[in-house]
């Protein structure tokens, strides 16, 4: 079970109050976690990564275990603490704008 924390606007969009808990088939990577997230919450498609290129949207970052994972390859394994559900996978919106 993977724990995912969404930015506030995406929690509202997906109608979730707190963190999201996902069962991810196979190895837990950014791609597999986001695939599972979008499968459960299709309204999030296109809001975290581009629907065609699958690239992370520029003003979002991925963090876990106090590490910035934003530039990791999408198929790189996530830290064990994320895979085991001890630590959440955080999707963070850049602090910018008005």
């Amino acid at each position, binding site marked *: 079970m993977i724990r995912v924390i969404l*930015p506030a606007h*995406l929690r509202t969009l997906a109608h979730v109050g707190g963190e999201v808990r996902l069962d991810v088939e196979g190895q837990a990577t950014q791609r597999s976690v986001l695939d599972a997230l979008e499968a459960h919450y299709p309204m999030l498609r296109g*809001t975290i990564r581009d629907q065609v290129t699958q690239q992370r949207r520029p003003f*979002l970052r991925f963090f876990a275990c106090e590490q910035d994972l934003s530039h990791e390859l999408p198929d790189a394994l996530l830290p064990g603490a994320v895979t085991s559900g001890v630590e959440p996978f955080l999707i963070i919106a850049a602090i910018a704008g008005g």
Partner: protein
Amino acid sequence: MSNIRVLVGTRKGAFILTSNGKRDRWDISGPHFAGWEIYHLKGSSADPDRLYASQCSGWFGQLIQRSNDGGKTWAPVGNKFVYDGVPGTHQWYDGTPHPWEFKRVWHLEPSLTDPDTVYAGVEDAALFRSADGGQTWQELPGLRGHGSGSRWQPGAGGMCLHTILLDPTDPRRMFIAISAAGAFRTDDAGKTWRPINRGLHSQHIPDPIAEVGHCVHRIAMHHSRPRVLFMQKHWDVMRSDDAGESWQEVSGNLPTDFGFVIDVHAHEPETIYVVPIKSDSEHYPPEGKLRVYRSRTGGKEWEPLTKGLPQGDCYVNVLRDAMAVDSLDSCGVYFGTTGGQVYASADAGDSWAPIVRDLPAVLSVEVQTLP
């Protein structure tokens, strides 16, 4: 008695303002989609409770929301806008080729007859269509592909397709406008397009009478005379009496002919409205006086409408999609400002009052006259 529903898109959400036919008391609901930019929302004339909204953000991209109950509840529908084929390039601000990139939906135009069919004008400029209530979107590629697309260039606000006019007498005919490419028309339901910019004159481009390259801000049409078009260009107010084949300037005695909005009275096809803005470098009303100008002669002769509008220290703008009219016997006129006011006139512009004063900056205003 009829009711009025005003759909307001702002920088930080959507608002729905409702009143009965007297239009003196208003209920305000919102913000819907709080914190998101709502470039435009519009209802279907075939089913007034079917609404579409363009919701976007610099962080999370584009969403399309749909309501089937007049805006009480909403649900996201499809948001996958993919250009047809290899997108190619248009010109960047410096004249170099720049790849077409989808950024946002500026304008949603529901079909006049089918609530499930809706058109989307997007940035970078293209026209998309959905025939399944917004679930899926397909580009009408003949517009970008008609030959001049590689020469289109963005205006200061981006290269946006912001105006979509559907001819009520001919379902094959549509007009669209792009900043800063110009106006285009199709006569075969979007398969092929051609520019309709003859008569436009834009001093800031290398060839002031070029086929494309004009910064058209808005076009308006009266449903009873779809061959007559009115245009607020970057500078100049124009009209065409031949479906865009040629244009004549009708700026007349306006204090400035720069502006964004233009609209037509619901029952008087020669009565039109603009809001003059000082200049392209100072986007606020001349002399700090917010004045709507009305022409009852289809242009050239204009009268300022000031009653109820601030006549001093007013430095708001009125953006291109932020004016609309209702169709009650005494035509109502509505516009929103970047200062967050939505003004309404229940007497065709003779007098005005704010419906609401302190919304986020208003991006769009649409009006529904409900039975």
